[in-house]
């Protein structure tokens, strides 16, 4: 496949792996966080762990939209869908995310709620047009990547005069999450995690550019390499981070030059700005309440805001106390560290959202990487004895 195979070339990968092995200083350890679930997925799917030296450790970050959604929002969506007039549209990933008390959208659908899976916001508009007597609500989630599409749908709905379309908005902002992780040692709100550099978002950075990360270099002395989602992109970005560490530098660098410019996609930013405004505060799973970390519809678009159009009860629900999604999301623990992993929590019976989305750290480890756990445990026991 043209323009895809080039970035999955095994021979080139082995060449980069050899350079990494050569340049990684055996006296050092390298702890890098890949922020995005897309990177987590690529690392697991292509077995990159096998190509890296043992002292280069990748820590999975919170960049999985489904994973950071607090279960209260799932409960709220289920309440919305219970309204007999409402047709709730959602991306498939969200269907199985557990709400509180074992509830989920897929179970609500089975119980009779009109919940449909869609692939794009264009489907959402079409369904609203075709069903004028239904209240069609789009369950919008995602980081900056998906926000412009939601903005576009709202504007298109206004233009078409669609009176039965609205959005249950859960769009969140990447820089807020990075800041929360970096401020953890200071605020004490989250467990501190040793991170010497970030594999920076791919698609998010296409929209927002690489500029918004500069503040993390200035304030925290962090290293960020904006990276594409293909496995070769990730390998090259890891090498770039290792070089920064070895050279004692900290900078924002752009590996994903084929798609990311410093200023980002200005048209998309303008669109988002036209439709959305910052929320004062928003709850994230694992990261807790964070100020100015999410978006809501501006007042002039209020008629498309499901939270204004319907009475949506504010639900705050706590995660299952044994579920470690929260600390896994910020890289403080690995999926296999969770007692529920692979026992009561599997993709068929997920206890936490990280086991649901293919971008979730637990699902990626379960689906692709868990065959290494047994050998790892044996190694650890050997070292301990």
């Amino acid at each position, binding site marked *: 496949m043209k323009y895809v195979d080039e970035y999955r070339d095994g021979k080139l990968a082995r060449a980069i792996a050899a350079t990494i092995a050569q340049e990684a200083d055996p006296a050092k350890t390298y702890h890098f966080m890949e922020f995005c679930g897309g990177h987590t997925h690529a690392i697991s799917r292509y077995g990159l762990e096998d*190509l890296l030296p043992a002292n280069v450790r990748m820590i999975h970050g919170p960049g999985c939209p489904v994973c950071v959604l607090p279960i209260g929002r799932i409960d709220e969506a289920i309440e919305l869908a219970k309204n007999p007039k409402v047709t709730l549209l959602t991306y498939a990933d969200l269907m199985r995310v557990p709400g509180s008390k074992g509830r989920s959208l897929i179970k609500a659908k089975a119980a009779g709620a009109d919940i449909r899976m869609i692939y794009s916001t264009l489907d959402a508009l079409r369904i609203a047009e075709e069903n004028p007597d239904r209240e069609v609500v789009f369950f919008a989630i995602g980081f900056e990547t998906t926000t412009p599409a939601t903005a576009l749908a709202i504007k298109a709905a206004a233009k078409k005069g669609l009176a039965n379309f609205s959005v249950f908005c859960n769009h969140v902002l990447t820089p807020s999450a990075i800041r929360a992780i970096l401020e953890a040692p200071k605020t004490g709100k989250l467990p501190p995690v040793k991170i010497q550099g970030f594999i920076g978002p791919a698609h998010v950075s296409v929209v927002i550019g690489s500029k918004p990360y500069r503040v993390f270099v200035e304030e925290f002395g962090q290293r960020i390499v904006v990276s594409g989602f293909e496995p070769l992109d990730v390998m090259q970005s890891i090498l770039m981070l290792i070089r920064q560490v070895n050279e004692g530098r900290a900078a924002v660098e752009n590996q994903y030059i084929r798609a990311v410019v410093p200023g980002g996609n200005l048209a998309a930013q303008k669109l988002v700005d036209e439709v959305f405004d910052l929320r004062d505060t928003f709850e994230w799973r694992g990261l807790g309440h964070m100020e100015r970390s999410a978006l809501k519809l501006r007042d002039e678009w209020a008629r498309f805001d499901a939270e204004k159009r319907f009475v949506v009860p504010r639900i705050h629900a706590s995660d299952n106390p044994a579920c470690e999604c929260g600390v896994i999301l910020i890289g403080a623990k690995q999926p296999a560290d969770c007692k529920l992993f692979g026992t009561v929590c599997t993709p068929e019976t997920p206890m936490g959202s990280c086991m649901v989305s293919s971008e979730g750290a637990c699902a990626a480890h379960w689906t692709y990487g868990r065959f290494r756990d047994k050998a790892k445990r044996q190694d650890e026991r050997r070292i301990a004895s």
Partner: protein
Amino acid sequence: MNAPTETRLRHRKMDVKTGRVDLSHGSGGRAMAQLIAEIFHEAFSNEWLDQGNDQATFPAPAGPGGRMVMTTDGYVVSPLFFPGGDIGSLAVHGTINDVAMGGARPVALSASFIIEEGFPLADLQRIARSMGAAAREAGVPIVTGDTKVVERGKADGVFISTAGIGVVADGLELGGHLARPGDRVIVSGSIGDHGVAIMSSRENLTFDTAILSDSAALHRLTEVMIAAGGPSLRLMRDPTRGGLAATLNEVANQSKVGIRIEEDRLPIKAEVLAACEFLGLDPLNVANEGKLIAVVDASAAEAIVAAMRAHPLGRDAAIIGEVIEDDQHFVQMTTAFGGGRIVDWLSGEQLPRIC
């Protein structure tokens, strides 16, 4: 002279072009008899079905083999017509394949139709004719059948439920529990074609692809494999729902072994890869309807693959991996990138109603 009016009316053919199935077609009266005669008998005709009884009576299969296999299957695919096939041909191929994977020579099929009120007669005829053609081409007659009509909304167009019987040659022992470490894993051709073809024709997904479903009857290919491999064959399976990944996991669990495959060796069409990339699917989880996997003794693997390649349905056959010892029964894959990963069962639904 003209026949009396009443007789002429009774003989008036159904209006297949514009007519629809109504509840009278399932009520056991004349309308039902006419539907069966003009749609199903016309399409399937063979001496056993044409006996017109509630059961088919036919001689016990001749030739060697004292054991029979029997299978049953239901078809609820949506859409009913898709690039490269339809629910009718799919039902015939799928049932024959389930018989053939047991190492059996298929002998006869049955088909039962559950039809939704309002279903166009023209579509029903198209499906029946496609089934009849598939059965004739495979040389396996549909010897008995049944029709039911349910009220609108109680079914989705038409559902087909089938059964198939066949005879296994003496000395052939095949089963999912028989894979042993060191055995080779063979796939008969490109994977993922059927699922992608179905996906491309679903109404809420608008993308064009030249990919056709691979729906095909595999009993002649398995005949070739049995001739070439004989007792070296451990098992054969058709990786339908859940794709290659599900089938390999079934085998690993049944045989209490691990399986390791090489991504580089998997035959996958470029268009299928592209569609999967676009839709976020893993071709290993995508359904096939005309492919099989076989686990065979290593010493016979090359000869079996060579024999398969000489058959049109096995032209792209390849050895894709081997059976290994693993008390966790994982299916692992060495990626083209050089790392390792698990090939897991699919969680939840990837494609709704593909077969």
